[in-house]
């Protein structure tokens, strides 16, 4: 009875169409952002930032990008790792080769180049879908794996094959403590989250969803499948590219192509499936889940093991991780294809009645 829309009458279409039409939602989101920006820094330690929060923020951003392509537009992509790699390496090259390049511009440049690559490898989507499209995106993944390993220009002809960045700063504000890195990433996530939410609820979002649900009928209404699919690839790759640049610059500091391998692509896809396809919130849920689970297992399993007298090695933990991921993917696809986000919205529905039973 507290979470209800009673009395909240909208008197204009604009009011009805805003991002968070329910007043309680609006307050909740503001509270969450305030907590994230101010409350969290007061509560957590360095390890938490490095191991959980910063990866969570950046991977949420990447999952957001993947969700737009896979969840909203229905185009399967197994090559997101490659787009992250393009973002990271091109941001690196822009940053290092151009004197005095501002950090944010370099990061966005990485996204821009990722968009170009995304458009190229998105062209097959105009011809094929499903498994066939998955193979095309895998081609992107493997080609980029090779390119960043073998073509010296990308790594600034670095002998070791890996690249690194340091001395990040924005308009004089240096970003080197975990707190500062956290706030930097949080800023990106909030801005991109807002832009993405706007896109999916406007005309282009409807076009994407139309293509996903029934692309032959979409053409008949006057939706251009080519524009819709390529724009989905473009927007998605841009976001994923920026996330990749952030991952390299802020989280890793120095990296090699293996950081963006096919395992990363699968990881992002799993985040989207578990979190909820076609849901902005879902990307966050999925990222949180996938970031936290390995850490959770790493702490809990050995403890459980000693309880029953069995020695559980790290290899076993990683195998268990795989098994749980696999089982969860299957479970979600069977039981709740719309993932955690759907469970969340079901929870909200129940919340409307609380504390009344019906």
């Amino acid at each position: 009875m507290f979470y209800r829309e009673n009395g909240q009458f909208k008197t204009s279409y604009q009011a009805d169409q805003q991002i968070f039409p329910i007043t309680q939602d609006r307050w909740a989101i503001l509270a969450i952002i305030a907590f994230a920006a101010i409350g969290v820094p007061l509560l957590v330690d360095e390890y938490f930032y490095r191991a959980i929060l910063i990866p969570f923020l950046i991977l949420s951003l990447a999952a957001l990008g993947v969700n737009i392509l896979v969840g909203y537009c229905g185009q399967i992509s197994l090559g997101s790792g490659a787009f992250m790699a393009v973002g990271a390496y091109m941001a690196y090259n822009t940053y290092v080769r151009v004197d005095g390049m501002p950090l944010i511009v370099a990061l966005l440049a990485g996204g821009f180049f990722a968009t170009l690559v995304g458009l190229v490898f998105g062209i097959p989507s105009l011809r094929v879908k499903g498994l066939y499209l998955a193979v095309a995106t895998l081609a992107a993944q493997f080609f980029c794996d090779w390119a960043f390993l073998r073509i010296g220009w990308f790594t600034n002809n670095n002998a070791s094959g890996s690249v690194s960045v340091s001395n990040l700063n924005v308009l004089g504000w240096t970003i080197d403590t975990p707190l500062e890195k956290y706030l930097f990433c949080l800023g990106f996530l909030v801005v991109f989250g807002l832009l993405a939410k706007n896109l999916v609820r406007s005309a282009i979002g409807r076009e994407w969803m139309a293509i996903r649900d029934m692309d032959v009928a979409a053409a008949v209404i006057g939706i251009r499948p080519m524009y819709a699919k390529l724009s989905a690839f473009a927007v998605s790759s841009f976001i994923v590219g920026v996330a990749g640049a952030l991952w390299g610059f802020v989280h890793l500091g120095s990296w090699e192509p293996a950081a963006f391998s096919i395992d990363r692509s699968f990881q992002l896809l799993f985040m989207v499936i578990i979190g909820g396809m076609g849901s902005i919130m879902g990307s966050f849920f999925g990222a949180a889940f996938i970031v936290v689970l390995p850490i959770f297992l790493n702490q809990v399993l050995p403890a459980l093991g000693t309880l029953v007298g069995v020695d559980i090695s790290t290899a076993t933990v990683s195998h268990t991780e795989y098994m749980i991921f696999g089982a969860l993917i299957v479970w979600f696809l069977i039981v709740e294809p719309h993932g955690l986000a759907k469970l969340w919205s079901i929870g909200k529905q129940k919340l409307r009645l609380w504390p009344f039973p019906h």
Partner: protein
Amino acid sequence: MSKVIGDVILDVQNISLRFGGVKALTDISFNVKEHEIRSIIGPNGAGKSSMLNCINGVYTPSEGSITFRGQTFDHMNSRQVAEMGIARTFQNLALFKGMSVIDNIMSGRNLKIKSNLLLQALRWGPAEREEIAHREKVEHIIDFLEIQAFRKTPVGQLPYGLQKRVDLGRALAMEPKVLLLDEPMAGMNLEEKQDMCRFILDVNDEFGTTIVLIEHDMGVVMDISDRVVVLDYGKKIGDGAPDEVRNNEDVIRAYLGTSH
């Protein structure tokens, strides 16, 4: 109320359609005049939906041409046809099941939306104003079809009769000159049929939209049509006013079979 029927707006000339060895349509010719209600009838498998698919650009005819608003085409391009003003509903309801009623009908407005991606992402100024303007139009259609209570419901959750109305709404959102309706009353009970009839007549009356209608219910066809085309086994066997067609021997034979 009397209505004025205009000149020929859609002219189908010698259309043939082949799928491998199967001839779906053979040498079909007929025309549709502006503001009229033209029905296409015929037994199952006669090729009626295929005919609509040709007009719509979903199928490419093997022979023949179609003239629409003065321009002649061998092959209609779906998007171009939509832009020129032909909209349609589908026999099997090609609705976007995951979206709400409003979003489904809004998707019909996509042709008219001008603002680009960046503006939409920022949801600023012109993009916002455009979205509101289109929302108004869509709300008119929702009022017209009397589905206000369901506007936020995901379409997949609605009963069949209401889904058909949403299908019609989406087509109407395109503000078409010609509306192709593929069995809009299939699977409906008497009340629902009456409602749908009323909507179709209102659309024809108030907006002057030309209607091309495939329908099996003879009562409806004879009642509301201005002219009727009859197909059987992909060939045209009758063309004219409802009464003429009703008394045409070939048509009677097609429906009832020959007596031996």
